């Protein structure tokens, strides 16, 4: 099947703004010496002088930008006790702490507190400990509450109280230890901003899912999707940026501006890609194959699902209704956590609530195929992959697996072999590469 140009394409206008915000974030984490946290902690931004650093993007960027440094950092972790098959995000980021310097040779910026992300993946839960073991700083642990099956009111009560406690404790402690005042008003603003970003992100997901040709590929989405989430920048700027992205994607969808001009094959993934080798997206585009992303890529707007009437909506997320009174700090945290204690993000839906949810995601995205990475060094991003592949195949979706170490670790990713696999996959389906 030939793969010639079918639709108009245009460069993305939000690109430069994304680069600017991202560069600003990068600068902020390299220079901040004072109060830096780590982990999935929205509350931290409501402290005036806390800068949040998430180690996932830091680790991924290290591998992407500076392979020798990332490798050295992982070695530094390995020789101090971390397994050589431990997630590259952690190995890279915290190995840097062991080395004592960052990529350009300047000293490792000292973290003043650490908030390990609770068990979205076991390795995440464990990672922040090393920071505290190494440099003796305050650390707060929490729980990512999970159980399989439907919502259970009886279980929820104690679990939710536990979760609220785990969020309130560090806020009170940061005030006590660092003498900073948590701003309730600021927290409310951040929550409001997050809500707007979620709405924009959700709309972007729908536009990608419903429009043929898709106005945006996941490669483009990945360039921006951490902004405001994993890479925290100014909340107002975040909202303005996501509105800008939504507006442009909508305009492109309305005007049939394609992300891939020869779109003929739509495919999805599961969980993160190899951040250090994103070339495979472009390689697939030469076959007219566009990647629409994964549940992970689209989790910012909430996991999409078919509603009983056949329309696409967001999975019930037990948010408190708009206008719920938030007069105390506890009220605010309660509202921020939602009514269900369980974490309903994409990881947990896959693993604990409905393993075949990916089939529904493939249908929503109108996907013809799925390329499922299996990572040898990442428990959280590998756990269900083979099973998902089985369910997708049963549902008639073409599936290809490929192996690698972990999205932030190129050790075991044989790039040539991956491209060979893609050739076999695509050519087996009757597609031919169109090289410009």
């Amino acid at each position, binding site marked *: 099947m030939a793969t010639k140009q079918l639709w108009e394409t245009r460069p993305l206008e939000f690109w430069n703004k994304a680069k600017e915000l991202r560069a600003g974030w990068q600068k902020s984490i390299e220079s901040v010496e004072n109060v830096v946290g780590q982990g999935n902690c929205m509350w931290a931004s409501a402290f005036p002088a806390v800068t949040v650093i998430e180690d996932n993007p830091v680790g991924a960027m290290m591998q992407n930008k500076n392979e020798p440094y990332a490798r050295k950092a992982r070695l530094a972790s390995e020789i*101090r*006790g*971390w*397994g050589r098959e431990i997630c590259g995000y952690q190995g890279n980021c915290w190995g840097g702490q062991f080395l004592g310097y960052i990529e350009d040779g300047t000293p490792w910026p000292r973290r003043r507190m650490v908030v390990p992300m609770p068990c979205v993946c076991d390795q995440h839960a*464990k990672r922040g400990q090393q920071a505290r073991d190494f440099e003796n700083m305050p650390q707060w*642990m929490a729980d990512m509450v999970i159980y399989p099956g439907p919502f259970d009111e009886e279980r929820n009560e104690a679990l939710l109280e536990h979760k609220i406690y785990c969020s309130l404790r560090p806020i009170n402690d940061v005030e006590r230890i660092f003498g900073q005042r948590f701003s309730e008003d600021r927290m409310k603003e951040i929550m409001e901003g997050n809500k707007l970003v979620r709405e924009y992100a959700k709309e972007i997901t729908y536009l990608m899912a419903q429009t043929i040709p898709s106005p945006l590929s996941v490669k483009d989405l990945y360039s921006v999707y951490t902004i405001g989430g994993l890479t925290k920048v100014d909340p107002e700027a975040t909202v303005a940026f996501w509105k800008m992205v939504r507006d442009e994607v909508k305009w492109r969808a309305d005007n049939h501006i394609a992300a891939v001009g020869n779109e003929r094959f739509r495919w999805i993934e599961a969980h993160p890609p190899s951040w250090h080798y994103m070339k495979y997206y472009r390689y697939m585009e030469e076959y007219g194959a566009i990647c629409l992303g994964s549940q992970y890529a689209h989790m910012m707007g909430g996991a999409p699902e078919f509603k009983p009437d056949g329309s696409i909506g967001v999975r019930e997320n037990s948010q408190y209704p708009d206008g719920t009174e938030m007069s105390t700090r506890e009220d605010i945290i309660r509202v921020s956590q939602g009514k269900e204690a369980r974490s309903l993000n994409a990881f947990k839906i896959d693993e604990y609530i409905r393993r075949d949810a990916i089939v529904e995601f493939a249908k929503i995205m109108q996907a013809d195929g799925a390329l499922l990475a299996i990572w040898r*060094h990442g428990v959280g991003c590998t756990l269900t992959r*083979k099973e998902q592949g*089985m369910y997708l195949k049963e549902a008639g979706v073409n599936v290809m697996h490929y192996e690698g170490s972990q999205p932030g670790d190129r050790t075991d990713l044989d790039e040539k072999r991956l491209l060979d696999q893609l050739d076999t996959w695509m050519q087996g389906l009757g597609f031919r590469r169109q090289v410009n």
Partner: protein
Amino acid sequence: MDFKALVENRHEYAKAWKAKTGGKVLGWFEPYFPEEVAYAAGVLPVRVLAKHEPDDVSDKWIYASCYPVRDMVNQFLKGRYDYMDGLVNVEGCQWMYNAFEVAVNNKRKPDLFDHYFFLPDHTDAPTSKHVTRSELNVFKGKMEEWTGKKITDADLDKAIEVYNKNRLLLKQISELRRMEKPVIHGAEMMNIVLADQVMDKAEMNEILEKFIPELEAREPGKDRIRLMLIGSETFDTELEELVEALGGDVVVDELDNGTGYYWNNIIPQKDRLMAIGLKYLGRPKNPIKDNNWRRRPQHIFELAEDYNVDGALVVKQIYCHLHGTDNYAVWKILRERYIPYHFFERDMLLPVEDTTLRLESFMNMLKPGINHLAGWHKVFGED
């Protein structure tokens, strides 16, 4: 008593137990599973153990993961555990959770009962005990529904008594390993603890009560290098046996399914479920539950001191992410307290040559003055 045979015949034992009692068998995976509640319902809790077997069917369902987990999946898919009427998993290792989930999802047994018990990873919070109690209550309800038997306080008391007694007996045996020349070595001890996890505790208690006097009457063993085993769970005694063959002895372990299994007891209180919950929250921490204040390294150090070890073997299953992230703190305390250790990765099968090389060299390194290592002291020592 041949405890190894008890471990090897565990499937036959469980099947015979079912035939004899008409009761249900509940398989469990994670070391934090509160067996007492199931036992109170008249159910036989049986630990799912991995074994050496070619893994030829699990690849369709799972990728990577530590070998024990792969093997568990392999065994489930091959029907080795078909006699189990239900499965329960506790929040813990994700690979282990995957084995549980695949065992349920493959629908080999459509009527298999399953339950997931959320025991907080953050065990230190004041709310953790309420979560655990609530989860215990939910699990108790599930057990009642499944068995059709109301679990009374008296049932719980009986179960607590049997389990507490069992742990006390195991600890009694463990104390004998503190002798200068222990009458029981690591391999036999590990087989006892493994057998304990797959048998009716009341029956096991009778066996242990008879066994302890026999043990105490044994002649003291010979001088051996005293080692401690730290790390991922193991489901066999191959390593301990190899250590013994080379003149050493694993006098104490810090494994989840070793000393961790019987180290602390339930302190009775009126609220039985709270009492059970506090026992599990307070047991020696495994890495995933030791993610707040570090308690595990200190516990390791105390075991090393109490059992007067010459050195430690820190052994991690390949792809064990929990020990792979926890070893930093473990190595650190061992270094700080001048306890020599040797780290290596293991798989389900222990390569004999490779492991012998390690163990032999490490043990030779530990021996001051080395008498039995031919010639070394002559050249390197005081001569």
